């Protein structure tokens, strides 16, 4: 019905139109995440949001006013757009890098503090949907802040020296970083429960977020100050390499975005649910992503740029491979520690999702929850990492992988071979400590008082103890600890550095660590066997059938539970 209809008075027509539009919005909102709808509704009435929005506008107005005053006539003929834009960006960046991510952190934390999370968690919303809803509401806030600043950027575009590609690039990059920061903050909010830890985490996050903010903004934008400025400088005359690097950065950031979401959802998932598989797959994919990227890069260079340029990149790989390997090892150690210290038994719920055919069961085992399977997963990651390092080194140094592996065991390995030896030593350390976690989990699995978190703390303390004791002895002036000797084999950094330098004890240390790793693995054979055995003997099809029948015939599950158990 038209509002111009003479039969309907104007206010009534207005009310009708409002109602129709409200109904349309109500219908449309069915398509959105419930958390998003709730948070948008709340935000629109929230004092904090209104104050932030007003401050953003006031800040932008002040920038406009002051910049016009300050530049005077220069605004007519000078290339002042980058300077003015930088000030607007400064105002926007504070909201993007500090306020919105910290609000995301507080948002999930407040659900727990204000006792609303319990009621939310017992709805049929999956943890993943809750996380997604929180992230989407952060994204909506970001878009609103962008919209608020958009007219000011449009004003800047009328000034001299304004470059749309640069500005769009910086804004898109900032948006991605902000979204990643929001995902990280949401994850952080699920990791802390007590007030003390919450306070410490808040402080750490604020420092981190301010760090991001300052990294992106401090410096003169026009002179390439801050990351944003530096990027703008780079954008102008970059070849395909620039965009290649961008692609890699986006992929890495994307993988961490997924990982953060997986961890957050896992923290919110019910105990009997599968908290592990998603994280395991993501971490495994990350390692492959990085090293396949390196491999592809080397392969491309070795064929496209033979000669001098190739030599430069060969040197670059030799310098970059050890830190990249070390980072990958830290990554595997972190996920390995968590995976290897999980509860041993598979819940009925997860048992029902186990593949039904034998070969698929074997393939799926390392990805399923449980300490034995977690240790198998860690070994798989380490084997993959070692294989990738060897393959990349083979391509980079033009040697056969076998030669490199043999050189890795040799005490007088070549400089190229030492990278492989370095990876081998690192993998041994990770295998030893993950294996320790797995052993402890099985040992204390039946004790009520001991939880996975306790096992993780014990393993971490063991690592710290093994590192601190040699350093303490060194500080007491014991000469045996002055230089590297096998007495400090428990310190990974020193040993790995020694191996990379090709020190006197490199070969012995490698052999000893490899032996220790093999021993720990051998001790964990029962755990591995139990982990695989549980999956292989699980009749998921039958469990699913019983589960479906349970509702119709209560008591039927008793027979299954007693006779077969979940496995």
């Amino acid at each position: 019905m038209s509002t111009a209809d003479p039969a309907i008075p104007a206010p009534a027509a207005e009310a009708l139109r409002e109602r129709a539009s409200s109904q349309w919005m109500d219908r449309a909102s069915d398509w959105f995440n419930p958390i998003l709808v709730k948070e948008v509704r709340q935000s629109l009435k929230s004092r904090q949001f209104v104050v932030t929005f007003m401050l953003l506008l006031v800040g932008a107005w002040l920038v406009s006013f002051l910049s016009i005053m300050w530049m005077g006539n220069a605004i007519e003929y000078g290339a002042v757009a980058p300077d003015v834009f930088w000030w607007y960006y400064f105002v926007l960046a504070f909201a993007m890098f500090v306020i919105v991510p910290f609000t995301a952190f507080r948002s999930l934390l407040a659900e727990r503090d204000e006792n609303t999370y319990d009621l939310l968690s017992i709805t049929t919303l999956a943890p993943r949907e809750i996380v997604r809803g929180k992230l989407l509401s952060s994204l909506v806030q970001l878009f609103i802040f962008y919209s608020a600043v958009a007219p000011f950027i449009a004003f800047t575009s009328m000034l001299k020296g304004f470059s749309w590609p640069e500005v769009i690039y910086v804004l898109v990059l900032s948006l991605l970083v902000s979204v990643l920061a929001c995902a990280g903050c949401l994850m952080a909010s699920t990791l802390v429960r007590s007030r003390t830890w919450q306070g410490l985490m808040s402080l750490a996050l604020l420092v981190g977020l301010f760090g991001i903010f300052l990294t992106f903004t401090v410096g003169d934008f026009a002179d390439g100050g801050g990351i944003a400025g530096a990027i703008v400088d780079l954008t102008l005359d970059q070849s395909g390499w620039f965009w290649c690097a961008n692609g890699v950065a986006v992929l890495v950031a994307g993988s961490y975005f997924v990982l953060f979401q997986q961890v957050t959802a896992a923290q919110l998932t019910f105990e009997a649910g599968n908290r592990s598989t998603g994280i395991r797959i993501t971490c495994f994919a990350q390692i492959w992503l990085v090293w396949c990227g390196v491999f592809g890069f080397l392969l491309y260079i070795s064929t496209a740029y033979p000669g001098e340029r190739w030599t430069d990149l060969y040197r670059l790989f030799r310098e970059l491979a050890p830190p990249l390997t070390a980072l990958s090892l830290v990554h595997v150690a972190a996920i390995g520690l968590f995976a290897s210290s999980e509860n041993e038994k598979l819940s009925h719920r997860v048992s029902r999702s186990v593949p039904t055919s034998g070969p698929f069961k074997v393939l799926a085992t390392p990805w399923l929850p449980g300490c034995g399977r977690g240790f198998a997963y860690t070994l798989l990651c380490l084997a993959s990492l070692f294989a990738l390092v060897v393959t990349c080194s083979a391509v980079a140094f033009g040697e056969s992988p076998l030669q490199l592996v043999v050189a890795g065991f040799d005490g007088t390995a070549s400089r190229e071979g030492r990278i492989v030896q370095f990876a081998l030593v690192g993998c041994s350390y990770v295998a030893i400590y993950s294996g320790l976690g797995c052993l402890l989990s099985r040992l204390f699995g039946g004790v009520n008082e001991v939880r996975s978190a306790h096992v993780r703390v014990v393993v971490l303390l063991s690592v710290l103890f093994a590192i601190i004791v040699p350093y303490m002895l060194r500080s007491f002036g014991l000469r045996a600890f002055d230089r590297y000797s096998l007495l400090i084999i428990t310190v990974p950094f020193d040993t790995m550095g020694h191996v990379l330098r090709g020190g006197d004890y490199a070969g012995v240390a490698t052999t000893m660590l490899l032996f220790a790793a093999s021993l720990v693995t051998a001790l964990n054979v029962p755990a591995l066997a139990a982990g695989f055995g549980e999956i292989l003997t699980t009749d998921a099809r039958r469990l699913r059938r019983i589960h479906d029948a349970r509702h119709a015939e209560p008591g039927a599950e008793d027979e299954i539970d007693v006779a077969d158990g979940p496995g």
Partner: protein
Amino acid sequence: MLVVPPVSQHHSVIRGISMNPTETTDEARETEPAEVAATDEFVAAEGLLEEERRPTLELRGLCRYFGKLKAVHDVNFRAYPGQVLGFIGPNGAGKTTTMRILATLDTPTDGDAYVCGYSVVDDPDEVRRILGFMPDSFGKYHNMNVVEYLDFYARAYGFNGARRRDAVERVLVFTELRKLADKAITTLSKGMSQRLCLGRTLIHDPQVMILDEPAAGLDPRARVELRNLVRLLATEMEKTVLISSHILTELGAICDSAAIIEAGQILASGTIEEIRQMQRTRKGRTSHATLVVRVLDELESVARWLADQPHCSEVEVEDGVCRFGFSGEPRGQHELLRRMLELGFEVVEFSGHVESLEDAFMSITEGITQ
């Protein structure tokens, strides 16, 4: 004043809950279904329909330990559609822990609980679809009104479009919150907040409702209103309601049956009458009711006469009244009163002292705190 002492309540065993041994070993736990089966046989003998036989709520050897503290230890009971089951116990007895496990907010250390056949451990998603939980205290979202609050939970339970709007409307009508629909939830009174929380619990029309201290902090009127709502849920909507409260008179008025828990263990369970009977048995009394007689004079003569009458026992004179146990039927009480009047005793009061749930609670529990 003539007060007829309470007779056995109308509900049958199907509306009651299975009895629970206070000390159950692991072996006993394994054989626990036998006791349940006895109830089922009784139910079958009563000729009830198959659907009615199925418990909507069933706890089997439920345990929850926090380190060495046995917050809940080997708890077993069942509840059926249309039943209001009171869950009674002193502070720290394990009521809230049990309820949180049922609501899938916590996991048991051992044992399991089933809601309409679904395990709270293995099928929490299914349980959440059919269970509504009202905690003793609940957080309120800021910047949100009553309709938005209910609308959010309807969405969170997967309701869309007309179904969602209908669910919100239905709850607003049931809880009589229609007139407060646009009011901010943080400004609601305690009574209205409890109504809202009950509404939220009902938004997805659950089969089983767990209400933890719903009447706490409410004024008498709000308590009566809430009591009526809960009663309606069971009688009109055939929902199973597990309700805990410290106000035992309230529970006595709305519950068909009860389970008394102390130090994490079930001490008594059954219909309200069964629990009262259990208290009398514990006191070594065989009578079904305690009657009080007040006469103008000759109180001692009345006491002597009563002591010689059949079904009368434990006669005592105290505070100007004669109190005695009576183990006969209501008709027997009527007969007794008639004969007293015929003998010329000047009776001015003949009443039953109804042993309340509170009496039973005080008698059964020992005040153990963990």
